[in-house]
């Protein structure tokens, strides 16, 4: 990763929902090429933070700067168009479409067209290529199955594939590992490392700390909507406030 190239800079981001402070004055920096982990107990505002950065919720206060340009409050499709794409915690495929046709939709976006992700008539092939890269067996029936017939593991991959179809700069993965078995996670980890090697920057919001700590370069911990700690995985793990947030007051090993 490249510590002197900040890609995304979040400053003083806040959002309240009818009296509940969901995210409070969060600031963070994302450097080019890194994997930034975001952890926190349930209800600590992780998903809200993702929604704020990707434009699915408009922030009350604060700025989100991508390459120096303030994108806070932009509509979600404009933000995705810049190359900041996300996955959804509860998967959101197009259930009535076949797996490979799920990718035809993002491949038709203005960004994918700009990035040369296949012309008219080539998109089916490009979609199958992406699916193969992400672990759908090409010669099987799996890519041709309706998304409603696919198991969770494949749907999570499909979420990632939708991001890849846009040639993204940043992928914000919201609980990508939740609901997956240990072996499924083990097969996803090298894939993410490969994508990082290919120049994609990641923000990974996770519950599964062990897998995340082995992947992430830096980690931010949230609790009650505020940032309580930031640093390398080791530092965060050792931080007393993080332990307290996860184990409750007075909790220890």
């Amino acid at each position, binding site marked *: 990763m490249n510590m002197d190239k900040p890609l995304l800079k979040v400053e003083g981001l806040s959002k309240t929902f009818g009296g509940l402070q969901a995210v409070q004055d969060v600031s963070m920096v994302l450097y080019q090429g890194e994997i930034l982990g975001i952890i926190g107990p349930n209800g600590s505002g992780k998903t809200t933070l993702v929604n704020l950065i*990707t434009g*699915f919720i408009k922030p009350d206060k604060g700025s989100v700067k991508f390459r120096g340009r303030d994108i806070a409050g932009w*509509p*979600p*499709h*404009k933000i*995705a*168009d810049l190359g900041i*794409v*996300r996955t*959804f915690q509860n998967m*959101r*495929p*197009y*259930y*009535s*479409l076949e797996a490979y*046709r*799920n990718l*035809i*939709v*993002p491949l*038709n*976006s*203005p*960004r*994918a067209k700009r990035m040369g992700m296949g012309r*008219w008539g080539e*998109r089916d092939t490009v979609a199958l290529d992406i699916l193969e890269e992400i672990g759908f067996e090409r010669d099987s*029936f799996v890519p*041709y199955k309706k998304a409603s017939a696919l198991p969770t593991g494949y749907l999570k991959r499909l979420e990632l594939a*939708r991001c890849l*179809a*846009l040639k993204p700069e940043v992928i914000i993965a919201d609980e990508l590992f939740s609901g997956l078995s240990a072996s499924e996670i083990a097969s996803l980890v090298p894939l993410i490392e490969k994508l990082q090697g290919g120049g994609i920057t990641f923000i990974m919001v996770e519950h599964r700390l062990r897998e995340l700590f082995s992947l992430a370069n830096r980690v931010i911990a949230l609790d009650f909507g505020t940032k309580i700690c930031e640093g390398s995985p080791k530092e965060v793990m050792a931080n007393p406030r993080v332990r307290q947030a996860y184990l409750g007051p007075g909790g220890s090993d």
Partner: protein
Amino acid sequence: MAEVQRRKERLDRGIKVRAESIYAVSSWEEAAYLLAPRIILVLGLLLAPLLVQSPYWKRVVTVVCVYGLLGLSFDFLAHFVGLVSLGGALATGVGGYASALANKALGLPVFLSIPLASLAGGVVCTVLLLPCLPLRGVYFAIVTLMYPLVLSRLVEAFNILGGTDGIPGVQGFGGPWAESYIIISALLLCLFGLRRLVNEDLGLILRGVKDNDQAVKASGISVTRYKAIAVFIASTLGCLAGAYLAHLYMWAGLSLFALDFSILPIAATVIGGGGTLVGAVVGSMILIPLSELLREFGTLRIAFYALVLMGFIVVRSEGLMVWAQRKYHQFERWVQI
């Protein structure tokens, strides 16, 4: 209560599997099996005006096609984009008035005024509906329900476009053959065009919007833009039907905004099977002749449609065509459990 001992098992027929995923249909018998339903529909529609003798029933055939078009427009928006429009009459009204104006004020002949009015009407309807496009489900439905009402009130209140008298003296088609075949060919064109469209890239995006608009936004695509395109396509079909009606009756008036144009296509689609497109056409083939037979009951007709609609939604909500396609393409058998 007796315990359930068996269940119904459904298997795709071999020919369907091969036709869909392996593309290996070899013999002409198999090709005929696959093409037969399409050929029957096309030939049936084309021959219909030749087979019926009285001018009255010839007129019924054209009205079936008009409602078929409206039904296609409803089915496309509801089942492929997820926008339920209860105001199909908005498009017929706008299209009818537009065509009458193009014909009377600009002096355009029929074959120019209808296509022009369809496109222009499509644009007008899209612009009118633009503020409502972010709405979902119920909200969109009720707002569309209000539009035809509001427009007819405006025509009445401002006494524009002929007020309650309408615009008489619109040019006709000049003969029953042109009358029938213009609308039949338009219907067939739109039916097969739409069937193609929903499997093209544009159609896939629209189906994506229906399944999950959040994911479409996350893919960097403006949902509102594509909804606008879909509404344009659907209202162009509706306006085509309206424009045709204005020339058929040689008159454009407030009745073009009538409730029939909103309700009948919905009933036809539900009966024929939503999401199949052809279902809307088949549905109106059943419903319109039936309602002609019930003409003497007057306004009770709408109550009758409503009753049929309720019955179908409760008893066989999938609709006729879904059922027929299943029977045609699948084996069914009972298995012990």
